[in-house]
């Protein structure tokens, strides 16, 4: 053990009460930092999982058709011509005209895991109880299961019934409650277009719950062929839902897809920007709030060490007279901060993990942007690293001032009694 560490340790144990105060602040600060990050990140991660499980990583829909103009050029070696896009002549095309071709092109992208074409349109859903406006979604079940968490979202009934029965339908939990529908019940969907209105009967194969209130209230899944008949759209698709191997690459992939297939491609980050910003702001604000605890720990450490430097001026002088350098004196005080910091961060991390686990067991029912019956937490090493780094920076910076002051003391002044 180095002489300075030995002295630091002895000084530290002699000032137990003051050091325990600093230690408590560090433990609380680190622990709370971890817990708040775990809970806010937990909800954010779960929200992202929910939106990926319902609307996919990328949605391809609608087309902006460029009008190209040919320009001729005459040069010394001969005539040539080139094409330029003309902004004024751009044409908006709703939906996807040739979904099979687009799907085929999409499968060439290395990050694309699966694709599913979806057709949707407005409809009136009527049960024996009452009617509600909904949107009919036509899907190819196997394709759609690969780009969504629909299988995990089923809360009643089975997908098997939907797969085997052309008149089967998957309805959301909210609409089922509003229309008093259960699995096996029949209902009517009415859709109208320019040629007139038509209605068809469907049976509830299963009830799903995504937790996203809008979806659970309005989305009725039908088999694709049934939906085409209902909406009278024999070809085309409303959009194509894409799942990715690496979800975080969605914005870059969406841009590349737009360039290649000339359809609008929106990543989940772009679609859910508002909510994601809310979560980000929440995470920052809680981190700042909790950092105040760690700041207090730093101030407590500053106070304790500053007091100790004042009390130990004679010890500092005698150490200097024995040949201890200014750096040695500084180290004596920095070691004390480091010892308290190490104990504080280790215990703080343990406390953070324990409280995070306890919070994850708390029963709480949340519906609206996702569905959960327990508090959601995220277990991430980075929360612990960030908490420890924040504590290290604040406590060590706070300790530098008194330790430097101790190192600057002139032993002659101290012994003479004129030290400032």
């Amino acid at each position, binding site marked *: 053990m180095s*002489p300075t560490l*030995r*002295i630091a340790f*002895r*000084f530290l*144990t*002699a000032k137990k009460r003051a050091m325990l105060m600093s230690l408590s602040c560090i433990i609380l600060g680190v622990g709370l930092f971890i817990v708040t990050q775990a809970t806010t990140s937990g909800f954010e991660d779960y929200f992202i999982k929910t939106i990926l499980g319902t609307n996919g990583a990328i949605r391809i829909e609608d087309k902006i058709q460029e009008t190209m103009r040919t320009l001729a050029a005459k040069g010394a070696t001969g005539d040539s011509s080139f094409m330029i896009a003309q902004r004024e002549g751009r044409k908006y095309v709703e939906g996807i005209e040739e979904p099979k071709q687009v799907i085929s092109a999409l499968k060439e992208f290395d990050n694309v895991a699966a694709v599913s074409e979806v057709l949707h349109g407005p409809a009136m859903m009527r049960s024996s109880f009452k009617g509600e406006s909904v949107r009919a979604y036509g899907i190819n079940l196997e394709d759609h299961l690969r780009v969504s968490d629909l299988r995990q979202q089923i809360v009643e009934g089975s997908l098997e019934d939907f797969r085997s029965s052309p008149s089967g339908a998957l309805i959301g939990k909210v609409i089922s409650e509003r229309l008093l529908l259960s699995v096996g019940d029949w209902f009517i969907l009415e859709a109208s277009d320019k040629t007139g209105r038509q209605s068809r009967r469907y049976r509830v194969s299963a009830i799903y719950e995504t937790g996203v209130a809008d979806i659970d209230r309005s989305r009725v899944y039908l088999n694709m062929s049934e939906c085409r008949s209902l909406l009278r759209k024999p070809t085309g698709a409303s959009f194509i839902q894409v799942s990715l191997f690496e979800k975080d690459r969605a914005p870059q992939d969406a841009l590349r897809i737009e360039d290649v297939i000339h359809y609008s491609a929106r990543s989940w980050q772009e679609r859910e920007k508002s909510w994601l910003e809310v979560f980000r702001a929440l995470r920052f604000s809680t981190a700042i709030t909790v950092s105040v605890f760690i700041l207090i720990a730093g101030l407590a450490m500053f106070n304790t060490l500053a007091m100790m430097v004042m009390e130990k001026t*004679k*010890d500092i*002088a*005698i*150490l*200097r*007279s*024995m*040949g*201890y*350098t*200014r750096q*040695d004196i500084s180290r004596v005080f920095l070691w004390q901060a480091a010892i308290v910091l190490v104990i504080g961060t280790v215990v703080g991390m343990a406390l953070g993990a324990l409280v995070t686990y306890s919070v994850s067991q708390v029963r709480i029912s949340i519906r609206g942007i996702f569905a959960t019956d327990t508090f959601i937490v995220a277990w991430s090493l980075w929360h612990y690293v960030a908490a420890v780094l924040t504590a290290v920076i604040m406590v060590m910076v706070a300790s530098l001032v008194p330790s430097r002051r101790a190192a600057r003391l*002139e*032993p*002659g*002044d101290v*012994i*003479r009694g*004129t030290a400032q």
Partner: protein
Amino acid sequence: MPEISDNIALRCTDIHRYLGQGEGRVHVLRGVSFEAKRGEVYAIVGPSGCGKSTLLYLLGLLDRPDSGEIWINGHLMSNSVDEARTAARGEHIGFVFQFHFLMLEFTALENVMMPMRKLGKLTPAQMVDRAKMLLNDVGLGEKTHRLATQLSGGEQQRVAIARALANQPSIILADEPTGNLDVKNSALVFDLMTRLAKESGQAIILVTHNPEIAGRCDSVRPMRDGLFV
């Protein structure tokens, strides 16, 4: 450069030192010159405020002179950098102060080992052996593991002497080492210090108000108004 004899452990020439600032600035030392030979005991005496302790701290490299030179074992130290002065203090100089200045959180043994740990020339076991030997020499062999707070004033001063001798310095500087002790303990501490220092050929310079102690030194240098008289 003045000629330095091997026998001279410490020499200072024409030392000036001002203390305080502005109108309160005082010319404390007014051109003091002094030298100390190994194995000799010097007493600096004089009235309070004549500059005795100021001179001692300058000789111990705890303070810097405004002008003049200080040589320690043939090396000019008065204008050297802080690191060199600190190293010289650790290796060549032992201090004994009036108020002991023991580190209260540590035992007598640990206090004596403190300078040895910094110098790092001995193994931990050798340090313990030497510290025990020194404490034995000062009559505290039975109290090596007592905290400084559990020792009397006289015992604390004896621990301070053992600590000053720990690194076998060539110079012992003592600022009124008996000033806080009764007559019996004063005599004991002085005898101890001079005996141990003479045995190992160390120069002892002590500042004292005690005429009896001063009278038993090899050389007495009275000071008045910042000068030896």
